[in-house]
């Protein structure tokens, strides 16, 4: 407190609220996420340690689920900080997966071309979302709600018209030998995992054709993508001038414009980044399952937004953290899978989700009041 009293003495203008350094260290967007992560891991270590949740398969299980949430949460996080929402993320996942399947299986394109074309189309749709929002000044809530239905409609209509079914399979066969497909569906560190299996550090198959091989044979590219997107998002937001523009665009778009920030460009690029993240999610999923389903990604937009809010971002924009959003996604994944390991009725997951969302929003509001000195 001593330092702060000194500034008080020098301050000749206004009474300045004084915080202790401890309280100041707490005022960060990640606070809720950090506390939540510790709480969730403590809980499951105490109550589900013996359930297999923390052996290699268990850990890989909740890591993959968390990584899925993380990929879309980072996109949603940056967009929310820039002051907008994207409710079409879930539909975009279904739509993107379907495009890859149609291009590669039905039309017989090489898989790499199908993937690149899908990325181009989906990011163009993201740009269109953003363009409509900044041009009309309509709330992004409404514009992207429209695209939620439009994209989901197409994700069902296209395969039904072309293939007379809503699931297109056979992607694993056409992806054989493709150079780009393993970037989304492959695994890395397989050598390391088989070494760990031989050394007895992780579980191995005891019988069958794969006896002696480790049960978890590598880190899926999905997790690599999640980590890469988190690092990219975090650096972009906190370490670049574009990051400052993202905060400014969401904090007060008009003030940012007057200061010379290209607000429209920032918002449109963030819509495109969100679409990019959704397409990464979709591509990984399609490559893993070998099929695309019209109902994939249902409700994912809300799960992404919940992870972001748990991670400390404000729904009104201008404040938040990519690390926080990633922790929010981790909490999400660990709890969803952990309840299964702990033998808890899985429907209770939704109850938990509602409760934690409510707490997170209340905590965030309190933090914002501390930051801005609002009363």
């Amino acid at each position, binding site marked *: 407190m001593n330092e702060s009293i000194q500034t008080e003495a020098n301050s000749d203008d*206004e009474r300045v609220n004084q915080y202790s350094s401890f309280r100041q260290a707490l005022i960060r967007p990640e606070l809720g996420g950090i506390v939540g992560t510790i709480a969730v891991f403590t809980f499951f270590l105490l109550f589900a340690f013996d359930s297999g949740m923390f052996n290699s398969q268990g850990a890989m299980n909740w890591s993959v689920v968390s990584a899925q949430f993380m990929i879309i949460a980072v996109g949603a996080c940056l967009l929310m900080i820039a002051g907008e929402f994207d409710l079409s993320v879930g539909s975009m996942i279904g739509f993107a997966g379907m495009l890859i399947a149609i291009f590669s299986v039905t039309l017989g394109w090489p898989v790499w071309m199908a993937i690149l074309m899908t990325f181009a189309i989906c990011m163009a749709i993201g740009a269109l979302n953003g363009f409509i929002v900044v041009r009309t000044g309509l709330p992004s809530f409404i514009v992207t709600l429209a695209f939620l239905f439009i994209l989901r409609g197409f994700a069902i209509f296209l395969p039904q018209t072309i293939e007379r079914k809503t699931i297109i399979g056979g992607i694993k066969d056409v992806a054989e030998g493709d150079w780009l497909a393993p970037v989304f569906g492959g695994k890395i560190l397989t050598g390391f995992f088989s070494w760990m299996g031989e050394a007895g550090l992780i579980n191995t198959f005891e019988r069958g054709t794969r006896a002696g091989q480790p049960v978890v044979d590598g880190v899926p590219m999905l997790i690599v993508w999640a980590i890469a997107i988190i690092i990219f998002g975090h650096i972009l937001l906190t370490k670049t001038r574009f990051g400052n523009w993202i905060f400014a665009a969401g904090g007060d778009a008009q003030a940012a414009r007057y200061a010379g920030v290209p607000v429209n460009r920032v918002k449109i690029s963030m819509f495109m980044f969100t679409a990019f993240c959704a397409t990464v999610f979709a591509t990984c999923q399609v490559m893993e399952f070998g099929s695309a389903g019209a109902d994939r990604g249902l409700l994912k937009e809300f799960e992404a937004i919940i992870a972001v809010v748990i991670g400390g971002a404000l729904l009104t924009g201008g404040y938040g953290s990519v690390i926080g959003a990633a922790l929010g996604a981790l909490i999400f994944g660990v709890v969803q899978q952990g309840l299964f390991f702990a033998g808890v009725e899985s429907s209770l997951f939704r109850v938990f989700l509602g409760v934690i969302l409510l707490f997170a929003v209340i905590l965030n509001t309190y933090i914002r009041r501390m*930051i801005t000195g609002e009363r």
Partner: protein
Amino acid sequence: MTTDHTPIVQMKNIEKHFGSVIALAGVSLEVYPGECHCLLGDNGAGKSTFIKTMSGVHKPTKGEIFFEGQPMKFDRPRDSIAAGIATVYQDLAMIPLMSVSRNFFMGNEPVRKVGPMKFFDHNKANEVTMEEMRKMGINLRGPDQAVGTLSGGERQTVAIARAVHFGAKVLILDEPTSALGVRQTANVLATVDKVRKQGIAVVFITHNVRHAFAVGDRFTVLNRGVTLGTAKRGQISPEELQDMMAGGQELVALEGSLGTTV
């Protein structure tokens, strides 16, 4: 003051029509370096439209703008900022959730190159911010303090310091004191005085005659889209100015009961 110099901004017979509404019907104004030119007028007199024309937000329907003797056409606010005309808006100066240092460099972030990558140079931004704030007499807990914790007067001061730091030659202040208390107003007016002494032209928009008289060198009164004239300090009394602004007799009649300037 320095009226023997050439004007830095010269606006000649500016007209601005919004459809059938004539917001400005021929307004002329000259601003000299190092002077504080007060633009007075009641609500709806056209002050905001006029300064938005000067700062490039609106294009004039008719009339000419000369900046440093050259005819200027601003298409976007960015053009006028680049030329050295900075505007500080009353409510839109700062973003409360962002830190002082992030606000200070908003749109002008310093970058540090690491290989081909460019990163926001936080150290430099923080140093410069603390230094500039010290000059303006604002004590921050740290450069990462959120602007939301500053008072309204401090926010205006930070915005003015920012404009000056980034090389503004003309500083337009849109009603900087209208929402402030007495003490904060005094601080902002002191800042205006400091800035003027650095040789920057200040255009100070207000409808408060007392605030105008505290710092103004010249006074231009706008009423219903036309200039009622420009007067130098000492040529006009606050009461006369007040009457011109109100443009009518009502205030004279009120004067008796109010006793002093409004």
